[in-house]
């Protein structure tokens, strides 16, 4: 059965199923969300107005049987935070269930004239529009409890109070296998786009759904097995490997040793007590306290399992999960080394419905602006409460880093295109700085995952260790990432497929096997570039220029300890990354 597009119009509360038009037929995941946004959303529209849309699309292989670590789902729209196109993706339960209902994408559009809130219940029989009056004003943990009781074993997509208030830092929550709402399509404020449709929650029940059709079962099976073998073999992704044992927070101590861990609002690359907030410290607390776990999977079928469940001192579950970006943004970047605070603040972000990267960075800006001292964890929790309550201060903080910096007169503003930087200091890690500056998404650490240079098409052409080569490499990485974001596979498959050629081949074969697309490894970068081109053109029409592809001014002027380095990559290198868009 061919996949369908489910279009939900909140203006008239009608849901319609449409055949996937030819122009979108080869896309899934990010490729599909960006195609639909490019085709259907006016780039000049107000992100919170009636002309923006929220598009949800699982990847090519998401929901297919036994494809390893393939539960990712893309969310797209025009971002209230950046003003440009946004794709933010998440693990959790929704991608597989949407795919198993035979849906290529869900398009959420329009706004109810009476501004009443709804819960959408999507099943094989259609969409029910239920009143969400009882959920309005509640955080995501209460919403999840209510939805699990009413709709057990379903996927939940929802927004907390931040999304209801249409704050620019509102993310979209997705439940995990334990029905905890801690998985997030966090970046870019898409929770506000969902809130602007007056949808508080979406339930996806795939019972009786048609499942995912496999075009070439033999090719698919061959590919998924090769990929699974590579994941299981590689030191980073295998069971008890770095990710499984310590989660993504395994990076805290490494970046800190390297002098590249942004600290106290990007004023240093080293935090003396960062180890207390690291993956190693999380693992130690889990072992000593009991009641938690490392090696937790965010969706069925994940064999990497980098998530965790963090317990309090009595062994009661505090939050799932503490990731690298979270422990850094709420920790080192605020001068805080208390894991229990980080867990509590992570839960606040999950509950209120905030992107924890932007949320932590915003607290750091508030600290720099004099609202509280660096290291003041109690004060930070009070600020999250201000956001939850929607006080005037809370609404400023909920708009993210740039709005807060303006409100409090802060110059050191670590953003690109309005989105704050993740946990890699671009003055010390200049390659990621090129990606932060040029990706259509705003500063984003997931926009440029490394792929082997020979696959990326730059083998022998550029020196990865030179500044001159960083533009070409960034483009190759961004294109490959756009492709992987479309597969439904977790980005962490990038590690084994870089080192193990059979894994890369298996990834491509599994996509070809599911979809019937005649693609090979040679198509990965060109297809990724097609996606990037749509995204860049959307942003250009929205008013973006080369001036938006720049790191913040202070990074050129201020030397970063401990290496005392500043941003030195030229504007010409940055402008060259996407120079091909109008030349091709």
């Amino acid at each position, binding site marked *: 059965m061919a996949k369908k597009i489910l279009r939900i119009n909140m203006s008239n509360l009608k849901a319609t199923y449409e055949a996937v038009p030819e122009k979108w037929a080869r896309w899934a995941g990010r490729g599909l969300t960006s195609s639909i946004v490019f085709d259907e959303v006016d780039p000049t529209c107000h992100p919170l107005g009636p002309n923006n849309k929220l598009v949800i699309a699982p990847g090519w292989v998401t929901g297919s049987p036994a494809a390893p670590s393939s539960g990712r789902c893309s969310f797209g729209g025009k971002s209230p935070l950046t003003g440009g196109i946004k794709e933010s993706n998440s693990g959790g339960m929704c991608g597989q269930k949407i795919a198993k209902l035979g849906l290529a994408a869900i398009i959420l559009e329009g706004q109810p004239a009476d501004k009443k809130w709804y819960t959408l219940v999507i099943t094989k029989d259609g969409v029910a529009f239920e009143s969400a009056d009882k959920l309005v004003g509640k955080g995501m943990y209460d919403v999840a409890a209510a939805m699990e009781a009413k709709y057990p074993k379903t996927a939940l997509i929802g927004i907390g109070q931040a999304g209801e208030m249409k704050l620019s830092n509102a993310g979209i929550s997705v439940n995990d296998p334990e029905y905890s709402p801690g998985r997030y399509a966090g970046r870019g404020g898409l929770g506000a786009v969902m809130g602007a449709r007056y949808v508080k929650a979406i339930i996806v029940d795939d019972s009786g759904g048609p499942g995912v059709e496999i075009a070439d079962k033999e090719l698919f099976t061959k590919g998924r097995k090769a990929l699974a073998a590579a994941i299981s073999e590689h*030191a980073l992704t295998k069971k008890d490997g*770095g990710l499984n044992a310590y989660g993504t927070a*395994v990076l805290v101590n490494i970046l800190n040793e390297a002098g590249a861990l942004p600290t106290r609002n990007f004023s240093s690359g080293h935090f003396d007590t960062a180890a207390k907030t690291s993956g190693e410290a999380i693992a130690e607390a889990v072992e000593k306290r009991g009641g938690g776990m490392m090696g937790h999977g965010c969706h069925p079928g994940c064999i990497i399992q980098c998530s965790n469940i963090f317990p309090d001192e009595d062994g009661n579950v505090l939050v799932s999960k503490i990731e690298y970006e979270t422990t850094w943004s709420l920790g080192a970047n605020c001068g805080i080394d208390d894991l229990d605070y980080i867990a509590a603040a992570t839960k606040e972000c999950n509950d209120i419905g905030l992107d924890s990267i932007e949320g932590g960075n915003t607290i750091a800006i508030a600290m720099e602006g004099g609202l509280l001292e660096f290291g003041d964890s109690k004060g930070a929790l009070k600020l999250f409460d201000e956001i939850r309550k929607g006080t005037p201060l809370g609404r400023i903080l909920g708009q993210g880093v740039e709005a807060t910096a303006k409100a409090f007169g802060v110059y050191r503003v670590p953003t690109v295109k309005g989105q704050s930087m993740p946990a890699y200091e671009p003055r010390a890690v200049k*390659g990621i700085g090129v990606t932060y500056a040029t990706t259509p998404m705003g500063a984003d650490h997931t926009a440029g995952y*490394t792929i*082997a240079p020979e696959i990326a098409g730059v083998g022998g052409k550029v020196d*990865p260790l030179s500044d001159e080569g960083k533009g070409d*490499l960034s483009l190759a990485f961004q294109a490959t990432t756009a492709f992987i974001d479309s597969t439904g596979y977790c980005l962490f498959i990038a590690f084994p497929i*870089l*080192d193990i050629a059979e894994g890369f081949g298996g990834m491509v074969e599994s996509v070809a096997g599911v979809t019937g697309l005649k693609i090979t490894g040679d198509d990965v970068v060109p297809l990724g570039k097609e996606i990037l081109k749509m995204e860049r053109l959307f942003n250009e029409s929205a008013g973006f220029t080369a001036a938006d592809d720049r790191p913040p001014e202070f990074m050129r002027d201020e030397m970063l300890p401990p290496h005392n380095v500043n941003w030195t990559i030229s504007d010409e290198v940055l402008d060259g990354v996407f120079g091909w868009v109008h030349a091709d």
Partner: protein
Amino acid sequence: MKGTAAITVHVVLYGSIAEYGGGTHIADLYLKLGEGSLLGDVLTELGIPSEEKGYVFLNSVLCDAPGLNASAGLTLKQGDHVGVFSKDHMWPYQYRDGIRMSDTLREVMQERGAMHHTYGTTPQD
């Protein structure tokens, strides 16, 4: 270990190799070594097999990577800080692209390729 006059270096071991320093996941210790001791002597002194170490830092400068042994010959001095990670600790290339590294590691990476997550442990390496 060279010489008899002692220097003290601060050593932190991360991950499974922490057991060589008396820790579980992190071992933080001060090591007395002879004057003129080398970076590789830290591993020898603690009994850490070379194949178990991953990234190695000396005073915030990346000196080695999983599967490589590029900077063992660097000379240590009083007060140096050495960070040693287990081989399974990940650090994707995009998150270390442009990081400060030792000249000897840079030379090896120029030859072996800069982007691998591990060296010498996979079929393609």
